[in-house]
Each structure stands twice: as C-alpha cells, then as structure tokens.
C-alpha cells in the first residue's frame, strides 16, 4: 500500500484554534477532517501538505438542525450521520438519495460532508446536490464569517473559494413549502464515482413548478448547476413534457469530457435522461406520492 510523505500534525481544540493554526502554518497546511479525500491523495503523493490540522475533535461542527427556517448541516457531519438523519430526509429526500450512493457504508462512517465539498472533485455527488438545493456555505476566517452560495463555491476542479486561512463550518438550506427533491446517478458499479448524475429540487404551487433547482455532477456543468433549465422550469406545468425539455436544455449546456467512464455523448445523454428522471421523482415527492405514484 502506498504511504504519505512526511507531514507535521496539529490537533485543533476549537474552531478559533483551528483558524489560528491555519494562519500560523500558512497555505501548505491542510485541514484534516474525515481524511477520506485527503489521505488517499497524500498516499498517492498527489498532495503533500506540510502540516495537517486535525479538526475531528471539533464537535461544535457536527450537527444537523432546523433553525430560522433552514436546515443546517455542520461541515464535520459524517456522511453516515446525514444518511441516518430523519430531519434531513424529511425536508430534503435528495440528501438521503445522494448519501446512499456516495462511496460505501464504511467510508461514510468517517468521511465528512464538508470534507467532500472542499475536495471539490468534479464528480462529487454532494456538489450537484447542494447546488440544486441552492444551499449557502458558511465560511469562517480570521476576520469573521461570510456566506457563499453553493453555486459560487467552486472555482475549478479541486478548487473552492475557501481561502488557505479559512474553514467551511456549515451548509444551510432554506426550507420552503411545496418542496420535493430527488437524486439520480449512474455509475459503473455500486460506490463508483458517477458517470453522470442529476439532482432535482422543485417547489410546487398547485400543478405548476414555482421554482426549481437542478444540479449536475460529473458532466462539466457550470457550478454544478443547470441554470438555463431551471429558468425554463419556473412557471412550467409539472408534467412529462416539462421534464423532457428541462433535460434537453440541461444536456445542451453541460460540457462532459470523454474518459474511461464513458464517451462525452453518453454523458450528455445521461444529463438529459437523469434530469428528467430526477424531476419526475421530485414532483411525485412534492405531491406526497411514492415512486409508484401512490400516496406515500
């Protein structure tokens, strides 16, 4: 098995302490949360931080609560905890859909929501998910706290707006009535990164889609979102024609690349098809129906 290069280590005792350590050790320091994105990269020596700042002891960053009309998820929340959270699943079924297909049950025991988002892999399931939920990222730094939309969080593959001396602390999602959400993913195998995945959140007003959030993962969608397709859906009837057209628009605006998981044409096709499937399920859920269309 491959092993990391030499690294120094500090254990943070509080968020302030973590921030102070980040400032002290500079841009070559990295936050160590679950480590299930970082440590594999260190073993392959694709990243070689000088210092690790272990924040696993910061229980104040591990929570799932509802407050002020928002679902709030602490960045240190383990994937397994989010999958297991009744309150999260009750408001946003998409969170369970997505967590269920991220990695595997053992990795989910330790990998964190914040860690995955900050890793910013272009195939990260949570990136498309939080983009569709129009979530807000809360970032703390030496100068205080700021918020950034999930859609402005990523600046490129493996790059986010979190500065070297900052820490992602929380993800917030506004709770609005009439909501239904769903995640659809195609992988080569259970636990694989997606070949393509679509996240759909709808807010219904009667039979109309009052608002929609569409996220796409692994297909080169800008900011992991399908903004043009969302625009189309606003005010559109909740029905098959809308889903199909939204899928078509989403596919048109993404830029997948060919690789071992599949050719670009296939990924674009998935963007279209999975967007439609995710919308179909999201609307069913918004109407209180199960997958077969019966009252849930």
């Amino acid at each position, binding site marked *: 098995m491959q092993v990391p290069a030499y690294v120094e280590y500090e254990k943070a005792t509080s968020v302030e302490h973590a921030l102070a350590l980040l400032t002290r050790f500079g841009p070559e320091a990295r936050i160590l949360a679950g480590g299930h994105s970082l440590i594999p990269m260190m073993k392959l020596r694709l990243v070689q931080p000088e210092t690790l700042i272990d924040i696993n002891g910061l229980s104040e960053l591990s929570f799932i609560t509802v407050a002020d009309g928002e679902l709030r998820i602490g960045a240190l929340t383990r994937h397994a905890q989010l999958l297991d959270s009744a309150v999260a699943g009750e408001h946003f079924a998409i969170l369970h859909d997505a967590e269920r297909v991220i990695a595997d049950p053992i990795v989910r025991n330790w990998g964190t929501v914040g860690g995955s988002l900050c890793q910013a892999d272009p195939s990260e399931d949570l990136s498309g998910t939080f983009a569709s939920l129009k979530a807000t990222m809360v970032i703390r730094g030496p100068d205080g706290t700021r918020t950034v939309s999930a859609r402005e969080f990523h600046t490129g593959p493996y790059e986010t707006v979190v500065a070297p001396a900052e820490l992602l602390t929380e993800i917030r999602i506004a709770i609005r009535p009439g909501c239904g959400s769903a995640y659809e993913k195609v992988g080569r*195998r259970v636990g694989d990164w997606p070949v393509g995945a679509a996240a759909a959140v709808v807010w219904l007003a009667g039979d109309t889609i009052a608002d929609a959030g569409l996220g796409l993962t692994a297909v080169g969608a800008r900011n992991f979102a399908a903004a043009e397709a969302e625009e189309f859906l606003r005010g559109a009837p909740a029905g098959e024609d809308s889903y199909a057209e939204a899928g078509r628009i989403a596919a048109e605006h993404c830029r997948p690349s060919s690789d071992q*998981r*599949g050719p670009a044409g296939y990924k674009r096709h998935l963007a279209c098809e999975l967007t439609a499937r995710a919308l179909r399920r999201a609307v069913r859920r918004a109407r209180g129906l199960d997958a077969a269309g019966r009252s849930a």
Partner: protein
Amino acid sequence: MRHGDGQMTGEGEAGGAYGPVRRKEDARFIRGQGNFTDDIRLPGMLHGAILRSPLAHARIASIDVTAAEAHPRVRAVITGQTLADRGLAWMPTLSQDVQAVLATDKVRFQGQEVAFVVAEDRYSARDALELISVDYEPLPPVIDARTALDPGAPVIRDDLAGKQDNHIFDWEAGDQVATDAVFAGADVVVAQDMLYPRSHPAPLETCGAVADFNKISGQLTIWTTSQAPHAHRTLYALVVGLPEHKIRIISPDVGGGFGNKVPIYPGYLCAVVGSMLTGSPVKWMEDRSENLMSTSFARDYHMHGEIAATRDGTILAVRATVLADHGAFNGSAQPSKFPAGFFHIFTGSYDLRAAHCQVTGVYTNKAPGGVAYSCSFRITEAVYLVERMVDILAGELGMDPAELRMKNLLRPEQFPYTCPTGWQYDSGNYPRALQVAMDIADYPELRREQASKRERGEHMGIGISFFTEGVGAGPRKHMDILGLGMADGADLRMHPTGKAVLSVSCQTQGQGHETTFAQIVAQELGLSPDDVDVVHGDTDRTPFGLGTYGSRSTPVSGAAAAVVARKVRERARIVASAMLEVAPDDLEWSGRRWQVRGDPEKARTITEIAMAAHGALELPEGVEGHLDAATVYNPPNLTHPFGAYICVTDVDPVTGQVQIRRFIAVDDCGVRINPMIVEGQVHGGLADGVGMALMQVIAFDADGNCLGGSFMDYLLPTSMECPSWELGATVTPSPHHPIGAKGVGESATVGSPPAIVNSVLDALRPFGVRHADMPLTPAAVWSAVQGHPYRSDLAIT
C-alpha cells in the same frame, strides 16, 4: 443434485470421509491468526521498494542514485547495472523469453522496474524512491496490438539479437483444409470479431517476498506468495546460481492467487539480491498499483470467430484466428508446447466435423503476462468465443439458444470423445446438465416473461453458456513448464498411533486443501479427516511438483494423495496379514478395516496396523517396517469438468445499466470430495464473471499510460452486483482419475462471462445489437444500443 435451496447435500460422493466437512484451516483465519507474507517479521528485517518507469517506452539515458543512497535509513540501492554486474539483470520467463529484472537499456512498459531501494522501514524506502533521478528519452510506444505488426512499427525487443519486429509466435491447431472445406459447403456461416479484454486477477493480497540469505551457511530462504514453491526453487537455482539444496521456498498462507502468483517477479529477485548485499532479510511487498500495472495480466485476445452450420441448426465446424497481446515480455505461464495454452479446446461442447484455429502472439508496450485469472490456460478465451458464436448463430437461424445447444451437445455415448483439435474429453453427460439448469431456471417461464415484458417496453435477457473445461495438467510427456514435467508427488507418513501426515506439492490459496486432501486420505484409510494433517508450501517438507493453478490440484495432487494412501493401505494389508496370521490375499478391505474374507470379525484397522508396523511384529520376508509411502502421479490425461449456466439480466437500454437478477450454475466436476468447498469455488468464479462481463478492464491510452492502476478504475464486483447464486450439480466421474474427481477451481470463471454477455445481448435483441465487447458498462451498453459499440481496451479520446 440440488435445486438452489441453499442446502448442501452429498450426491455422488462415496460416503465415508467425503461430504461437507467444515474446514480445518478456518480456525486460524477466523481468529486473525493467518500467517501471510506481509505478516512475517524477522529480526533486522529491511524493506524494499521499487522505482518504476512512468513511461511506456523510453531509453534510459542515465540514472543517479546518489541522493537515495545518502538517505540516512537507506542501506542499499540496486539498479539494472548492479544486477548486470552479477549477470542478474535479465531472467528467463515461463515462456522461453527473457524479462528485465531491472531495466538497463530501455523501459518497455509503464510500471516497469527500474531500481530497488532497501531501507530500514517501508516509509523510508518509499521516500527514497523520490531521491532517484532517471533521465528518459521517450520512444513511440506500441499500444494497440493490431498495429504491432505494421511495417515500421517501433521494435520493442531490440534486446533480442536480430529482432526486427514485434512478432512472438504463430501457432495453430486442427485441420485447416478439412475445416475450410466444411465451411465452403455449409448453408450458414456466421463470423464475428470479439475482444476478450485485458483484465487482472487482483487477488486481495498483493505479491511479495521476504528473502533471507545467510552468508555463512549459504542458505537462501524465501517466504513468498507463490502458487508453485518447488518450481520457484528450481528457477531461483538456475537464475541466481545457488545450489538448489541451499534454497528453501516457503509459501505461508496465501491470500488468493488466481494465477497471479505463478510467475517469479522482479521484486522477488531484487529482495534476494538485497539480502545478499546487506546481509539482512529483505521484505518486498508490492502495493496495489504495482500489482495491477506490472504483474501477470490476463486475457487480451483479439479474436475472429466463424461458425458453420446447416440451415436446420446442426453445427458443423468452427474456426478462429487470434491476435494475442503478450505485453513487452512473453511471461505467460502455460505448458511449454502450448504457446496459446489450451485455446484449441474452442471446439467447445459440441459434436463438430472440423475445426481450425491460428494464434499469433505479439509484443506491445504493456506489462507481461496473459495466462492468469483462472483461465485454465486460455480456456476462458476459448469458451467465450464458442459460446458467443453459438448465440450469434442462434440469432441468425432464428433458433432458441437452448434448443440450438441441446441439438448439438455431445451425447453421453460419444465419450471418451476426441475433438477435432485433439483433446480427449474423458466423460460427460451434457444434455442432462443443460436440462437440470433449465429446470432450476424454469426456462420456458423465463421466455414467457421476457416476451410479455418486451411488449411493455421492458428488457430482460436470458443467456446460456455451456462449457467444457480441460484441467489437471498434465501428462509429463506433453506438458512441462520450462522443462519441468507436470507430474506431482505426494508423501504419506503414518505415525505409530495411527495419525497421518500427507505432504503435497500443491499450494492452496484458499481452495481448502488442508481439509479436502485430509478427506481423500481419510476416505482411503478409514480414518477421520481429523486424523490426517496436510503439509504444503515448504519446499523442505514436501515433494516436488508444479503447484496449484489451472485447477490441477484435485486432478493431479488429489490423485497422488489417493494413490499414496492406497500404497499405504496395501502395505497395511501385508502387516495385517502378519498380525492375523493369514495370507494377504485372504484379506478384503471393508472401507474401514482389513478383514478376513468370510470371517469379518477377524479384522484390523489402519490405526491398529500402524502400531504393529512400528513394533516388534515379525514381518514377512522382503517387507520393510512402518507404513510410509511416496508416489509421483503422472496424469494420463486432462480431466474435463463441464457445466451449464443460465443468467437472467434486466437491462435499462436508456441508461445502459445492467442488473443480474438470477444466475443458475450447474457444474459437473466428477466426484465431489467436499460439496461445500466445491460450491464455494463455483460461487467465487461466478463473481469473476460479473466483474469481467460488466466492469473490469485494464485499459491504456494512446501514450501507453495504464488506466487500470487502482481499484478506483479497475472495478471489482461487490456483494451488490452479485446475485444469490443458484447451484445445481451432476456427477460424471472421470474414468481415469483414481477417485473419479475432476477439479473445479476455474470452471465458473470460464463459464460465467459468456452467460452474462449472452444474457445482456439477448435483452438487446429488439435493438438489433449482434455483439458488443466486454466489459458491458452502462456506456458500452448504451453505445451498442445506439448502433456503435466501441472497444473498451483503448481509452476514448
């Protein structure tokens, strides 16, 4: 027989010690007390790490190890030059080629070994690799085997005197003239290109060795992941130049082999040299990327198959041409007279008039290997070809694939059957096996369900595969590896208190030999398997033999165990006759005792006889004491297990996703010593099929970068992709095997991929898809449905 209800019964066994005996070896493994190569720790042991080439094809302009040697915890750095000075830079392969141990002039595949660091701990060894600087001058690589023989293609093996191309061998079997004539006169001829992509056995434990050379005694001891410890010992003697009696190879517990642990790898030799140079034991354990990128790959056969038949579905002949990609060195492991292994059993399970195949082997800038991953020496490739061709023919004729097979399967009265390429199949009742599988599956109901689903736009597939294996290599006059005949020894010692120790040359990597071989001896001697200890893996304690791969343990070593036990039993007869004061011919064996014919109360058990044989009893003239015996078993022929598999899949043609709903496997491996272990072997092989059919490939890009270098991209099936296997069995004993057993280790790996591929393609019939290559990932299935199936072995650019 059993009908998929999870019960383990013992049909076909001789009773007595045969049956679902719980495994003796489990006791240590379930307690975490296994002893695998990386568990071995010796005083003063050092750790090795290999620097590997990042390029597929390049000249080495220079290599500078001074910084690495200066690392405070590094004890030695070995380069190709270090080895060349000792005549060890090149070593023979198992296919009469040579392979670089550490590169000297050129690197010829990405991942090739370039330098070896020996350090005090594994982390420092890894760090020191980064302190070695190598200057490479890139050369154009040959990656697509189909271009390897193009005029002007870069010559990979310029180390071989006079080599001007990338050609390795041409080989053929069968009668080309007769076959061409049959094809020319046939009503229907169907042809298809198909690729059996490069994959890798990927046992969960990677390969490695702990080498300990004692300068004073001149003794070299190597603990290593080897499926063939004796063959390794002889090879080390030849290569390293040490006297063979000073070399001891110990295979401790081995965490899966599947053919990956047959060859000697450069890392092992480097560990040996490292130990010689430092005077300390040196451990080298490869990591997973090294395992996938540099050790023996499997398959990579580009095949063109043709099948000829009458309009009413009588199969007449098959022919095939194959381009075999062997990588940069021909390191494939098969008997020396068979460069394409047993591929010519592609005649399959059918009554054919003629057959001919031609195989061309070529070099490419990839890792060496080819024969691995439970292929039974290329029978995976052969069975895949013929079973796909039969399905394509069924489609062409508009016949049900089960019906077409049933019509053409060999009949029981035709055995022993000599196929058009010369194999003599020992025994079989093929139609019965297929019928059992169809009954378990309720085949007619599946077809009804398929029809009604198609009307609703849902797509399920039913795929069949019928295979004939050829295992138990093999008769020494035909089968040797590097001149070592494939006959295996077995020694049996009886202690005075009637306990037995069987020493065998084969090497389990999970197959349960400590239990099944004890059962064989116990069965022959009327003992309990608990009374028999099985010793294996240590060349100092076991007789010579060629090891475990190609499903040969039961057919060869199992036969040797039965024969040696019978020798002991015959010696016991003579001792018993002295004890009972009768003539030996007056005694008959009851299954548990030698008893006087007509007076069964006058009898002695083996236990009683053992004590007497060691005691003061006066023995007849010319009879030696004790009850020990030895034998070398030279198999008269291969054995031919066979099976009928049916796979049911549900396919989403819109996303390309495939779900395996059911898999029915009926196997016939002759007499089943331990049905529980037989079933476990089948289960494991069926999972291999899921991997190969749906997700596994070692692919490369145009520059020769290996894209299957980790388990993130070389995907292995999990508990979620594998269904609950439904097993059945028939028993057709082998007429030439002492206990009628045939061996089963690789049957399911051989038979399952075509069943799954046939199933998926059956589901896609409404879309007019005739063939698509493995692995049938969602992207591959979708592309086939769109009308443009693609090759998965080269990256899409």
